[in-house]
């Protein structure tokens, strides 16, 4: 019985340790209409998004604040659509080990409001 509990505990611990960093797949079509998949760990993806938020937010927010203080610009929402260009290297493609780095451009929208 003890062994059974131990086995079950180990199995659970094993799966939990994996669950901490999930795989988020990046997906899309290339210029020829062929499907592409790039698996990436969620922690790595979070780091990249965080970097973008800091960079874009850091650049954009002061600009909006400065424009907004000028009475000529009376707007209440600022939408920013952006592609994040990233390069992924050899051996990470699901279907074939492509030799060259691949450009990935996920599209996001950021909404800034008053």
């Amino acid at each position: 019985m003890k062994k059974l509990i131990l086995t079950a505990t180990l199995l659970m611990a094993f799966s939990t340790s994996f669950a901490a960093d999930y795989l988020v797949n990046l997906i899309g079509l290339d210029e020829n209409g062929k499907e592409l998949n790039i698996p990436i760990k969620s922690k790595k993806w979070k780091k990249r998004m965080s970097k973008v938020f800091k960079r874009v937010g850091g650049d954009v927010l002061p600009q909006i604040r400065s424009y907004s203080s000028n009475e000529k610009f009376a707007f209440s929402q600022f939408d920013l659509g952006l592609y994040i260009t990233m390069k992924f290297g050899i051996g990470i493609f699901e279907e074939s080990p492509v030799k060259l780095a691949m450009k990935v451009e996920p599209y996001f929208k950021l909404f800034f409001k008053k």
Partner: protein
Amino acid sequence: MKKNILIATLLTLVTFSASAKEGHLNPYWFGDSIDKSADQNDNLNSIDSFLNGVVDSTVGALNEFDAEPVAKATKNGWHLAGFQTSLGVGFSGNIGILAFGGTKIIEIDWARKKQEKKEKEEELESSLPVVTINENHTKADLNKALDPVVRQLVETGRVKDEKEFRKNLSVVSNDFYAYAKGLSTTRSNYVWRAGKIRLDLNFSASGKIATAGPLVKLGVDVKLRLEFARIMAKAQSDNKAMTDLNAKERKIARETRNLLDSLSYEVTKSYDELEKSYNMDVHDMSFKIIEVALGMSVEGSVGVAKLKGSVVPSVFFTRHKLSSSTPAVADKAADNGTINLIVDNSDAGIAVDKGLKESIFKLKRKRIRKGMKKAMKFAYKFAKKMSKKAKKRQERMAQGRRVKMPKWIVKKIRSQYKFEVGGSIGPVKLKAIPHLSIYWVNKIK
């Protein structure tokens, strides 16, 4: 001991088999089946890990940004209020964050939990130049409203060829007006009713209309939105509504009316059936809108078209309160009737029949209803799962760190579907262009 090893092996096998299709949507969602035996396949558990990853990375990054000095609110109050990302589904059903060209299946809007006021469901949408009309406006009024927009676009140099721009705009705005008149004369009293028609136009600087496709990035120079919002409960009479329409436009208006009435019934009936199986108020998200694209065949017949984002108008159905004057959902014509699906030459995979020759495919309403119910079920399950995961993640963070965390929640989810020629409806894959969108909105108080 042998027993223990057997149990452990079984556990491992179960774990292994459950993760065999990890990250893939079950084929059930793309097929025609909706029977109860499929229930074990429709729980979306196979994409749990992926969704956890999306939630963790998004909420984590947003929270990290909030800790930055630049994110702190200033006197004039500007701050990051929302974030939108899109998901796509591959040909074999694998789900991912849309990172290259392709059609999105799901669009997720994130927002802060504490809102100053209850916002409209579409407030997070892009602030395009919008020209809005209602039943009281004539065609001349629409043209009058468009004129200053055209002049501004020409004066600012965003449109180089004014003549070409005006010519193209006039063609699409006249058709748009005819669709709008179809809506204004629709007498449907079903609980789900069409209330708005929208046309998002994308023009190039040369004044030509630009259409987006799965592989085309929308980087056009000029965007313009035309909207007709119905404000009267009572339908307008043909005599009053159609005085300034020519023969072709009258045909569009009449056919739009018939289509909207049929769709109104099908949406209401599907929702009613879904409501019997699921408690729609059980989670934070609320089923708000169904968007369907309208199109015209070569012969001028109106039907359900692809949501191409330009030239093709969308009609929005919203839920109205049930009143004593609302008829019971029963339409004798529905079970044997059909609804037009506009097909074009790019649908080369469709077997040739008399429907294709006319650019119209007749979809059986019974099958549409079945597919629509399935689409609603998918939207319901996805919205519920996503919203719960985001909420739980925030709670875990707040408990673990013992600090007051800014709370980001899923504000809106838009899922997209495609009609198959057989009449079933499935979540849209990367290459396909959707016909139908379902919106769930968070009930922020």
